[in-house]
């Protein structure tokens, strides 16, 4: 043995790698079906609900378009163009993030890179993997869109026999389009590792923020309603948007192809499909070639970046983190300050919060440019209510993804926590204080901005701010309480903790709580829609709002109590 010259040479192994990935997917699905059928069923029910909700929404939009044929002729291609532009940008960034982790961050890639596989096989595998991981949601979003569109057009254009052809073409366009942003994202990931090895995540977060913010500012400016006639505005608007309809833009190939398909113009549609497929294949080949050829340097710099990224911690941060929680007794203050420091030093956490609330802030600060006149109509209450809905669901996203895993992450330190001179359940108070501080600061600041920008009545401003704080209380109570009741102490991956049984339970409970509170506030808003600016809400509306505030606070307290009771006697 060990004749170094007789060892089998490496051979193209992409098929083998894909088989392994398929096998892991099969094992994962089988395990979920056998060990957690309730969770799997809940996921299927939720996905189906989202799917039917989207279908219903798209159907309303297309039916609305059909009522005004002239506008529909202009609007539908535009809607599709913008839809695919947005998809192009979002998929490019999500592919970049996933591809970066797959190529430069995972132990699997290190393992494969020491195996006798060609670099091109490994890069191709990672490219395909990130493509699937980043794009499955587009398929989920796309299918109801496709069916709604076909259903809306059925009576006028497509016969029942023609619909299967349309569905086939629609799916083919989606599949052909996905590799284009995928290739772009893979190149972005490589460039980030090659040129920004130390601050890759910060670079990605800032780049994504700049692109999204730029798009929103440009979009809002283009929508700004001036004094000119509608026709002049429409011409100006279409002129500004003409860039996206350029023959060189992939979104235009797909939008035009689908538009032709819906009008049963199959030769034109197939032409655009061919163009899309050809470009997708070329973009994929180019991305894999470039990354394979220059991978070594990027991988080397990314590894070096990870190794030298261990900078000394800022002592000032420790002081600030401690002083924020001045109201807590010393042991709890230390735990809360530790969580705050971890939060600040983890860009993945704060960047998502900054992006989501940054977008809200951008939208709110641009509200005046729309020059809508809300006073004197029910809209002066409806728009702030919609803002409250957006803030609430963003808060639920944050608490489910980042607050919920906090207790589980203490699992490995439970020996230390258990030795602290206080009941173990008090640790939950520190977690709760940390979560409340972050969420209340950000959410109340956003809602205050909203009330100022919309010049909301003081009474309604107070109602919205109190409801926001109550939602923060309820959501943080749920995340910490359920996190302590259904922890995953042996797991260190926060995403897996958030996706586990406890995480799913917390997600469902949070959505239910937010929905209940918003239904209450929505009822009060609806009751007061006829009121003019400056009029106080009636006592029934105030009582409804008070009830949902109490409900949210009590729900949070109950969750915390249940969590603390379990946490006090838990054994790891």
């Amino acid at each position, binding site marked *: 043995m*060990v*004749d*170094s010259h007789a060892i089998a040479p*490496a051979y193209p192994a992409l098929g083998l790698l894909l088989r392994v990935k398929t096998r892991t997917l099969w*094992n994962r699905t089988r395990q979920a079906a056998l060990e957690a059928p309730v969770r799997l069923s809940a996921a299927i029910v939720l996905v189906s609900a989202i799917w039917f909700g989207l279908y219903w929404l798209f159907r309303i939009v297309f039916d609305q378009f059909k009522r005004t044929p002239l506008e529909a002729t202009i609007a539908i291609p535009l809607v599709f163009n913008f839809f695919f532009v947005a998809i192009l940008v979002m998929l490019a960034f999500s592919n970049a993030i996933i591809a970066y982790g797959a190529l430069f961050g995972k*132990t699997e890639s290190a393992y494969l890179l020491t195996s*006798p596989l*060609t670099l091109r096989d490994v890069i191709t595998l990672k490219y395909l993997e990130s493509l699937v991981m980043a794009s499955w949601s587009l398929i989920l979003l796309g299918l109801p869109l496709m069916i709604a569109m076909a259903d809306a057009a059925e009576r006028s254009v497509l016969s029942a026999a023609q619909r299967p052809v349309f569905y086939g073409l629609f799916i083919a366009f989606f599949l052909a389009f996905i590799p284009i942003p995928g290739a772009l994202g893979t190149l972005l990931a490589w460039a980030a590792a090659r040129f920004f090895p130390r601050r890759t995540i910060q670079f990605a977060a800032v780049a994504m923020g700049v692109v999204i913010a730029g798009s929103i500012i440009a979009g809002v400016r283009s929508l700004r309603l001036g004094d000119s006639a509608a026709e002049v505005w429409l011409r100006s608007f279409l002129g500004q948007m003409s860039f996206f309809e350029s023959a060189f833009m992939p979104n235009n190939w797909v939008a035009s192809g689908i538009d032709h398909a819906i009008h049963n113009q199959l030769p034109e549609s197939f032409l655009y499909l061919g163009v899309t497929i050809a470009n997708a294949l070329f973009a994929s080949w180019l991305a894999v070639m470039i990354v394979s050829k220059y991978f070594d340097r990027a*991988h080397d710099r990314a590894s070096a970046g990870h*190794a030298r990224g261990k900078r000394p911690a800022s002592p000032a941060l420790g002081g600030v983190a401690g002083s924020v929680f001045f109201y807590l007794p010393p042991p709890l203050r230390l735990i809360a300050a530790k969580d705050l420091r971890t939060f600040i030093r983890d860009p993945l956490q704060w960047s998502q919060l900054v992006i989501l609330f940054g977008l809200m802030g951008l939208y709110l600060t641009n509200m005046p440019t729309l020059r809508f006149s809300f006073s004197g109509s029910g809209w002066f209450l409806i728009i702030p209510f919609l803002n409250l809905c957006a803030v609430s669901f963003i808060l639920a996203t944050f608490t489910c993804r980042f607050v919920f895993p906090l207790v589980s992450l203490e699992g490995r330190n439970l020996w230390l926590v258990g030795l602290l001179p206080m009941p173990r359940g008090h640790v939950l108070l520190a977690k709760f204080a940390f979560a409340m501080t972050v969420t209340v600061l950000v959410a109340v600041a956003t809602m205050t901005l909203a009330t100022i920008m919309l010049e909301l009545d003081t009474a309604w401003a107070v109602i919205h701010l109190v409801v926001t704080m109550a939602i923060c209380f309820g959501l943080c109570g749920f995340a910490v309480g359920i996190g302590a009741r259904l922890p995953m102490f042996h797991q260190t991956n926060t995403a897996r903790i958030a996706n586990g049984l406890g995480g799913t339970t917390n997600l469902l409970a949070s959505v239910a709580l937010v929905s209940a509170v918003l239904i209450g506030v929505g009822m009060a808003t609806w009751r007061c829609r006829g009121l003019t600016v400056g009029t106080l809400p009636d006592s029934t509306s105030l009582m409804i709002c008070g009830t949902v505030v109490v409900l949210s606070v009590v729900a949070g307290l109950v969750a915390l109590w249940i969590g603390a009771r379990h946490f006090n006697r838990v054994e790891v």
Partner: protein
Amino acid sequence: MNTSDYAIILSGVTKCYGRTVAVRDLSLSVPRGQLFAFLGPNGAGKTTTIKLIVGLLRPGAGQVHVCGCEVGSNGLAAKAQLAYVPDQPFLYEKLTGREFLYFVAEMYGIGAARRDRLLESLIRRLDVGEFLDQLTESYSHGMKQRVVLTAALLHEPAVLVIDEPMVGLDPRAIRVVKNLFVEHTNRGGTVFMSTHTLDIAEAVSDRIGIIHHGELIAAGTLDELRAEARRQHSLEEIFLELTEVDDG
């Protein structure tokens, strides 16, 4: 020096992370058929050196050869001769141990009959048969380590590079692994082992290298190291003496 006579050659290798020099002008050669123990304090540059050997990092200066193949320019040929077991072993969590071993066998072009024959022996020696059909996510660190070692030895590599091989293993498994390493070198294979377990290094290694602050401060047989330290001490005392020089 004929590079193909040696399993591993590092010639004037330097690796920097920004301004930090992780490995400085490292020259080291490991002949075929030897078990080389690579020692050093935490942060001395052991893992960086290993990553340079297996091609996960590129040297800023110098060259690395494995079985006569330059890792930078002929990495694929070099990797075909290697097996690498990192300190945190990788396994696909949603594969069973057996599925993972079959995957490795196929990756190295080993046919089913030869694979089964090799596996039968390794499974028995490393005592992994009991849990081989469970998903690897349920394995303890020691179980993972044993399966990864099985995978590493499956294709009978010319060079086995291993980072902290005994962590998480019980005494019986440690004995088995030590015997496997010795058998591997007896058959002409080479083992390059980084470890903090000095008594194991002392017991099984043919040569020992000590790295400190990125520089190779000593290399040779245990007797040569004793001579260098000018004392008839254990490896532990020699190691402490040599690595305390710079610390003053």
